[in-house]
């Protein structure tokens, strides 16, 4: 939406430049400009006033049928204030940032162009619904991606009680492994991703076997483990920066795809593929949790560890499996994020906070909660870009996290007892 507005304003500038080239050689000093937007065309009958910085009126003009105005400056070079009478603008045309006043400096013998940022308000109204649809679709893609990474985070919490702040690094490590396989080794992205997923599972297993299982056996407290996971996250993140470099980089495959239209919605093939793949994977995970023996064991351990243990479930093996699953899913999430945005060393931390938002929203420790919560966070983040600037879009997701803790701390699917 913002982009379209910029286009409109730039159009105004372009029109102004053509005027300028025709009059640049005129004698004396002059202030000129053109008012027009993409849809409304030239705007006629708007009063433009030029004053000195002291407030004395120098001259005034109304825009002609081409939307142009030109005001002579008998006082010569100097500083002037140019004001546009906003009441003269037709309905639907609004002033953009900068307002109705411009301070300018005119040099000797110069014809000084002035640009007012005006936008076509009616344009915004017409496409708002489509825009919401479009953003919702992007949000679904983003939410599914977060969900994939977050299922592991939630299951690890459920089975071990650990809030793993280093989970974002699993995402980033996976994406970076796939990047090296894809770009440095020249393997096409799909086989590279499959290999990276296998390696991601190994990274998860190393986490459990090398660090967390020994710590659990030592009886390390949960708060200590939480701070240890922070330490691990810091160390891994900056090792990644050394290995991968500080810049964000893209995969070689599937670059520069243009969007295909489906009715009113436009989406690139890779995004569509991303949605389908995440959905398929998440459904498989859900089926596994629901139907298979190991899935049932996972839920049993998450529900009551001691009871599960005394029913003959090998808790350590189940937890190892959870870590491997978490590592693999995080890798896939990371690759998909790298595909839509770019791979960077700190992508894990950015996603981690959104994963937390999703997991807490759905209910900490529940696999399905992570799914539902992440989806909501993803959609919320993308749709919110209609009203807030793109660069602050993650703020919305994080605010959602705080709001849900006020309203319903146990999350949408969480049991009341878990928050204690």
């Amino acid at each position: 939406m913002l982009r379209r507005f910029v286009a409109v304003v730039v159009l105004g500038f372009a029109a102004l430049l053509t005027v300028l080239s025709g009059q640049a050689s005129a004698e004396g000093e002059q202030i000129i400009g053109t008012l027009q937007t993409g849809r409304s065309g030239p705007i006629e009958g708007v009063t433009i006033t030029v004053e000195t910085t002291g407030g004395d009126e120098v001259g005034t003009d109304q825009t002609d049928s081409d939307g142009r105005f030109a005001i002579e400056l008998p006082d010569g070079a100097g500083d002037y204030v140019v004001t546009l009478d906003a009441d003269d603008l037709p309905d639907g045309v609004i002033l953009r940032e900068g307002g109705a006043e411009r301070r300018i400096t005119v040099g000797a013998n110069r014809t000084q162009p002035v640009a007012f940022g005006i936008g076509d308000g009616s344009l915004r109204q017409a496409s708002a619904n489509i825009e919401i649809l479009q953003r919702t679709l992007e949000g679904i893609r983003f939410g599914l991606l977060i969900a994939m990474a977050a299922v592991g985070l939630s299951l690890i919490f459920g089975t071990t009680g650990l809030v793993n702040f280093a989970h974002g690094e699993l995402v980033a490590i996976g994406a970076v492994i796939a990047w090296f396989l894809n770009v440095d080794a020249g393997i096409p992205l799909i086989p590279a991703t499959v290999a990276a997923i296998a390696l991601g599972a190994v990274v998860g297993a190393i986490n459990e076997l090398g660090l967390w299982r020994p710590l659990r056996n030592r009886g390390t407290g949960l708060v200590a483990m939480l701070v240890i996971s922070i330490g691990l996250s810091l160390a891994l993140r900056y090792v990644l920066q050394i290995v991968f470099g500080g810049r964000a980089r893209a995969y070689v495959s599937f670059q520069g795809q243009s969007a295909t239209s489906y009715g009113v919605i436009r989406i690139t093939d890779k995004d569509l593929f991303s949605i389908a793949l995440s959905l398929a994977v998440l459904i498989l995970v859900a089926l596994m949790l629901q139907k298979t023996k190991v899935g049932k064991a996972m839920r049993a351990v998450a529900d009551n560890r001691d009871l599960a243990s005394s029913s003959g479930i090998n808790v350590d093996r189940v937890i190892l499996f959870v870590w491997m699953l978490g590592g693999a899913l995080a890798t896939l999430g990371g690759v998909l994020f790298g595909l839509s945005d770019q791979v960077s060393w700190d992508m894990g931390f950015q996603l981690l906070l959104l994963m937390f938002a999703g997991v807490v929203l759905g209910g900490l420790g529940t696999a399905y909660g992570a799914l539902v919560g992440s989806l909501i966070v993803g959609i919320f983040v993308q749709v919110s870009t209609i009203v807030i600037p793109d660069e602050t879009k993650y703020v919305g997701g994080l605010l959602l996290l705080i709001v849900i803790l006020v309203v319903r701390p146990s999350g949408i699917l969480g049991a009341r007892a878990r928050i204690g």
Partner: protein
Amino acid sequence: MQQVLDVLIISTKAFFGPLAVFYALMAIGLNVHFGYTGLLNFGQIGFAMLGGFGIAISVTTYGLPFVVGVLVGLLAAVLFALLLGLPTLRLRADYLAIVTIAAAEILRLLFRSVSATPITGATRGLSGFSGDFYALSPFETSARYTILGARWSGRELWVVSVGWTLVALGCLAVWLLMRSPWGRVIKAIREDEDAARSLGKNVYAYKMQSLILGGIFGALGGMIYALATSSANPDQYQSANTFLAYAALILGGTARVLGPVIGAMIFWFLLAFTESGLVELTGADGIIPPEILSSTDVAQIRFVLVGLGLMTLLIFRPQGIFGDRREVMLDAR
């Protein structure tokens, strides 16, 4: 030999430098939160940012006097603590951790966004707010002083003296508070929240007071940092800095009045030592070949070492150098 001496001089300066003050103040705040009350505040850098930007925005953007800026910064920290505490202090410790880290990140993202440019200067940040502060300096701001082989400008000396005075006052305040009835309730909450509640103490209110108090220390730290660098840029306040302060705190010893201060000093000595040492080693005539570690990577090594150090400390010596193992709140949920 000269190189070794240089490295030592740089590290000694870091031992007393403004960054050590910054982290000491943040860590004192975290000590109140984590060490005494058992609150996991992972967003201390957000408090620091509010302190620094409190001065910067008031003075540079709105042209208010310096003192007003300090008050605005402190007030903002109090409000931030209230905002964070209201939803989370009734919940388990890890919820506060998640919310505080998210809130600090929200603040940073908002402050650096383009739409905030007129107020915070976005990614370029603000500068030109420290004039009033340096005008108070008894040291010649342009002169250079040599102390223990390290060269200090008058400005640095002034910031550092104010900073260490604040640290000393802060320690005194914490010491007095912790031996008062209030401090005993706070520690009781850390040990057993339910027991404290059953004795009729309003646990929620005590936790909130603790969160506010520690947040104020964080804000003071951020002010010293902003004044020392004479600039306030949102990207200086990355979340990772909170964990540097945690590392300093745990190194020194949690739940000890001087733990965070000594921790921060040793921490910065070690960091500056390894960093300037690594710069020498990876430099033109260094021993480490650039294929293994180039000199541009040294800045990242800091965080890697901090991360590994934090893990090692918690696994093998959670009480740090001076702490008492029985007083370290690490096994509670």
